[in-house]
C-alpha cells in the first residue's frame, strides 16, 4: 500500500542573521483568512466566529489567539493558529450563511516577520513611507502599505515590535531589505 500522506511544509525563507540589535525573524506557519463582506451583510454585528469586525480601519483587534486586521472598509485579514484553520473557516461560513461574503484561505500566500528592538520603526521606515510615530501608528495599528518595492501588511505589536507580512515570493526580498536596513543600528 502506497503511503500517500508524505507532504511536508517548506518555509519560504531561510532566516538570515541580522548583525544588529534590531531583530528580524520569520514567523512560522499561521492560519490566515481573507474575509470580505459589505456593511449591509454584517448587519451591525460586532464579531464573526470570534473575530471582531467592528474594529476601526487599519487596526488589529485581538480576541484570544484570533486576530482580525481591518485592512479595508469591507476587508479583514483573520489570523489564527494554523491547526484551527478548518474549524474556524467552518464556523465563519456557518455564521455568515446565506449572506454575501467571501472567505479565502491565504495561509500559504503570506509570510510574516517579526521586527523587534530599539529603532525597529526606523528600520521599517527605511522602506515604508508612512508615519510610524506612536501618535499616528499606535500599538494595535495594522495597515497595508509599501516596503520599498514590495507590498506589505504592517502591524504594530508594541512600541518597538512590528509584524511585517508579505506575499511568499517577496519574502526573500523583504527579509533582505529589513536585514540591510537593520545594519544602521549595529
Amino acid at each position: 500500500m502506497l503511503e500517500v500522506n508524505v507532504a511536508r511544509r517548506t518555509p519560504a525563507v531561510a532566516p538570515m542573521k541580522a548583525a544588529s540589535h534590531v531583530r528580524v525573524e520569520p514567523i512560522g506557519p499561521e492560519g490566515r483568512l481573507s474575509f470580505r463582506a459589505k456593511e449591509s451583510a454584517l448587519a451591525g454585528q460586532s464579531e464573526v466566529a470570534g473575530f471582531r469586525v467592528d474594529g476601526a480601519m487599519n487596526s488589529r483587534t485581538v480576541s484570544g489567539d484570533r486576530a482580525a486586521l481591518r485592512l479595508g472598509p469591507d476587508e479583514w485579514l483573520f489570523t489564527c493558529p494554523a491547526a484551527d484553520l478548518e474549524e474556524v473557516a467552518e464556523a465563519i461560513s456557518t455564521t455568515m450563511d446565506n449572506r454575501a461574503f467571501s472567505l479565502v484561505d491565504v495561509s500559504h500566500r503570506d509570510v510574516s516577520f517579526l521586527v523587534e528592538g530599539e529603532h525597529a520603526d526606523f528600520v521599517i521606515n527605511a522602506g515604508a513611507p508612512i508615519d510610524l510615530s506612536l501618535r499616528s501608528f499606535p500599538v494595535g495599528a495594522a495597515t497595508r502599505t509599501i516596503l520599498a518595492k514590495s507590498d506589505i501588511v504592517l502591524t504594530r505589536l508594541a512600541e518597538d515590535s512590528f509584524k511585517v507580512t508579505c506575499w511568499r515570493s517577496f519574502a526573500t526580498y523583504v527579509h533582505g531589505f529589513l536585514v540591510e536596513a537593520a545594519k544602521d543600528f549595529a
Partner: protein
Amino acid sequence: MNQPFRLAAGGRVDRSRPLTVTFNGRKLSGYRGDTIASMLLASGSHLAGRSFKYHRPRGILSHGSDEPSALLSVDWRADRGPGYRDPNNRATVVEAREGLVAKTQNHWPSLETDVGAVNDLLSPIFVAGFYYKTFMWPRKFWDKVYEPVIRRAAGLGEAPEVPDSDRYANRHAHCDVLVVGAGPAGLSAALAASADGSKRVILADEGFELGGSLLNDATSTIEGKPAMAWVEETLAALDARENVVVLPRTTVFGYYNHNHVAMVERVADHRDAAPESLARERLWQVRAGEVILAAGSHERPLVFENNDRPGIMLADSVRAFINRYAVLPGKEIVVATSGASAYRAALDAKAAGMGVTLVDIRLEQDCGAELADARAAGITVKTGHTVIKSLGTKRVTGLVVAPLGNGGQIGDKTTLACDCVGMSGGWTPSVHLFSQSRGKLAFDAELDAFLPGQSAQAERSAGACHGVYDLAAVIADGAKAGGGSVTVEATPSYTGFQPVRVLPTDADPSRVKAFIDFQNDVTAKDIKLAVREGFQSIEHVKRYTTTGMATDQGKTSNMNALGLVAGTLGRELPAVGTTTFRPPYTPVTFGALVGPARDDLFDPVRKTAIDPWAEKNGAVFEPVGLWRRARYFPKDGEDMRAAVARETKAVRTSVGIFDASTLGKIEIVGPDAAEFMNRIYTNAWTKLKPGRCRYGLMLREDGFVYDDGVVARLAEDRFHVTTTTGGAPRVLAHMEDYLQTEWPDLDVFLTSITEQWAVIALQGPNARKLLEPFVTDVDFSDDVFPHMSVTSGFVCGVPCRLFRVSFTGEQGFEINVPADYAESVWKTLYEAGQKYDIVPYGTETMHVLRCEVGFIIVGQETDGTATPDDLGLSGLVSKVKPDFVGKRSLTRPDMVASGRKQLVGLLTKNSDEVLDEGAQIVDDPAQPIPMKMLGHVTSSYASSNCGRSIAMAMLADGRSRIGETVWVTTPQGFTEATISNAVFYDVKGETADA
C-alpha cells in the same frame, strides 16, 4: 608641522588632534575641524584648480558650499582599496580627516603648468556661444574631429571607474516643523518651535559644526556673551528636548510637493574609523507639517578685470578662515567692497596681524559707523574708489585702484601691493528652497535682492534668506518663524551695500576679462554679447552663456548676471526675471538617491516554491516580469535546442512535470460572481457548471485582447480564475476598477491567490497513471472527471485543487497545492515518475508544446493591437451578451476593415530552418525599399514532435492565404515559407479531448 599661515592660537579647530592629508602628492597638515581649503591656506597656498574653459589658475573663492573654483578629486578611503574616489568635491566643505587623498582637476601635465592654459590666449575667440557659429564645415568633421576635441577639453574631474564600495541608507521621516539651517535664525526658530514639547522638530544644517555665520564671528556678542556661547547654550537646550532631532552634515537639497523635503546626511566620510557596514550617506525623505527656511545668504563677488586670481576671495570668507580656522589667507590684504559688512573682515584681518587696506566704492557720506570703526583701528580706507584690475598670475600680487570723480570718471590709478584680496559686492539671500517650493519671489530694490513673496506651501523664511541681516533682528525673526518671540541684545551688524554690477573702469570693456561665473568662465562681456544678440530673458542668457549652470548653480553669480542683463537692457531687474531654482540645492550622489536599491535589493526576484528544486537540478532560468522561471533542464552537454527536443518528445510519449505556479490566480466569490464574469470576459459563464473549466478571453475597453486563461467554477458563487504570469497584477486591478467604479451594485469579492497555490503540471499520456495513486477523494473516470474539469481532493495527503486541463494537447493535470507543500509533493511525484522516465520541463518546452497544437500566448502572439478575430478566436466572443468590456470597440470601422493581421502558421521550405521570432514577412523580396510588410513571426521553434520547424505569424488577411508562399526576413536576407493553419501537431492516442 609646516603651517606657516596658521595662527598660534584661537579658531575652532581642535589642536589636540593634528592630522595630515595628501594634496597633489604632498602632505598638508592641520587639525580636526579643518577643511582641505583651510589646510591649503595654512600651508600658504591658494592655487586649487584650473577653470573649466580657459584653464586659468584658480584659488579658493569662498568658505562654503557655494564654492565655484576649488574642486578636488578625493579618495575618501584610500586605505580600504578602490571604489572610494569621486570628483568635483568642494575643498571648502571637505571635512579634513587623516588619510584623505585629494587631487586638483582639469589640467595637464600639472596644476602649475597646464597646457590647456593656451585657451586663455585664444579666449578672444572662445566667447559665449562661439561654437554655435562655427565647426560646421566640413559636415563630417563635427562627430569625428571637433566634438571629440571639445569633449576632451570640457568636463571637470574624472568619473569613478570602479563600482562603489560604500553603502547608502534611506529613511522616511515625519515631523511637525523642519528647520533648515542652524545659524542664528534657525537655532532661534527651532528653540521657539520646540518650546512647548508638543511638536516634533527636526533641525538640519549642511555644516559639520552648527552656528552658521556665527562660526566665523569672533567679535559679536549676544546678551553680553560671545555669540558662540549663545549657540552652545541653544544647542544644549535643544539636545535636552526629546521632541527635537538635530542633524549636522545634513543638506536639505529638495523641496517637493506637499512639504515633502529631501535631505542627505553625510554619515561616514568624516569618521576616522567608520565600520565598513556604516552607510556613507543617508537620504532623508521628510514629510513636514511646516518648514522654516533659515538658509542664510551668499556674498557676491565684485566684477572687475582678473577678479579670479588665486588669493582673491570673498570678504566674509577671509573672516571665516581667520576666526574659525585660525588661518591667515595672506600677509597683506586689500579689502574691496561696495558695502558695510566687509569692514568686519578688515577689522578681523587687522586684529590678526595682517596689513590691511580698505577700498570702498561708496562715498564717505554713504558709509555708516563701520567707516569710523575701521579708521579708529588704524586701517587706511579709500572711499569712492573703484578697482580697475588685479595683478599677478598664479597668485594676486596687487590691486590697481582709482578714485571715481562725481561724474564717474576714473582718477589717478594706484597699485596696492598685496597677496590677498577680500571682496564684497553685497549679499544674495538664499531663496533656492523657497523657490523650489514654488513660492513666488518678490524683488526688494532696497536690498537689491529677491525675497520670499507669496508662499505656495506651509513654509516660512527667517533671517538672512528673508532679507534680515542685523544679528538681533535675525534672532527675533527666527523666533517669530518658530511661533514664539524674543528680543535679545546683540552687537549691531554692519549692513547695507551699494549694488554695483561691474566696477567702473577706463579699460575697453570688450577686452576685459571680468568674471561673473567663475567656474564656467563667463565674463561680463559674454553677458553683454548675449544681450546684444537678442537673448534678453535671463533663461536665454543662462543657456547661451552657461552662466549659473556650473556645479555651484550660480550661487555667487546669478545676481551679478541678472543685474548686468537688466543694466545693459536699461530695464528694471525684475523685468528680466529670475531663474527658477530646481533641486538639488547642492549636488547629491546617485548613491544617496538609490539607497539600498542595489544588487539583490534593486528589484525583488520572485521565486516559486519549487524553484529551489529546479536550481538543484540544473535548470536554466529566465526572467519573466519579476519572476524567475526555469526555462529548460539541460542534461550534460545539452544546449537549449537539444534539451527542449528531449523534453518535448518525453511529454508526448510519456509524461513531463512543469512548474506553473507563476500563473496569476484570482478567487472570485459572491452571489453575482457569474454576472461579473459575463461582463469582464468576452464569452458566457452563466451555463458553466460547478466542477467545470472554460478558457476565458478578456479585452480592454478599446477592444484589444488584454489577457486570457482557464477559469474553473468551483461553486455557483465561486470561480478560480487563472491569468498570464505577467498579467496577474493588472488583471486584478482591471477587475477591481470595473467592480468598484462601474458595477458597485454587484455582490462580488476578488482575492489574489496566486501565491496561495503552487501549481504542478503533469502532462503526457502517462500523467494520469502517475498521479492517480497519490490522490484521494477523486474519481478519475472520464465521465466524472473529463478534460476541462476541476475538483477538490487530497494529493500526498494535503488538500488540493485538481484541474484536468492541458496546455500541450496531451492528457494533463494541473495540481494546485498550498505553496509550503509544493516542493515535497513535486519531489514525491518526480520520484514516482521515474518508472515513466518523467522529465521536468521549463517555459521553453511549454512554449513549443502549446505552439505545436496551436495555442496562443497573450503577449507573444498579441501585442496590444490584436482583436479576438485577428487571433481566430471570434468563437469566444458572445454574440448574445448585450455588453462586456471592449464589445463596443470591436465594431469600430478599422477593427472590422479588411487587411488586418490574422494568426496563421508558417512552414519554411527548408524544414530545418527555424525562423527568427520578430522576422518580417513580404510577398516580393526584390521590391524596392521601403518594402510592403505584411506581418511578422510571433513564435518560432524547432519541433521534434513535428520533425520540422514550426512558426506562428500575424499576417495581413492571412486566413484567406493558406497555402500561399511568402518571404520572411533572416539575418542574411530572406527565406521562403508557406502559409498554413496555426496547428502543427495532430495529437495521437489518448488526447486531452478524449
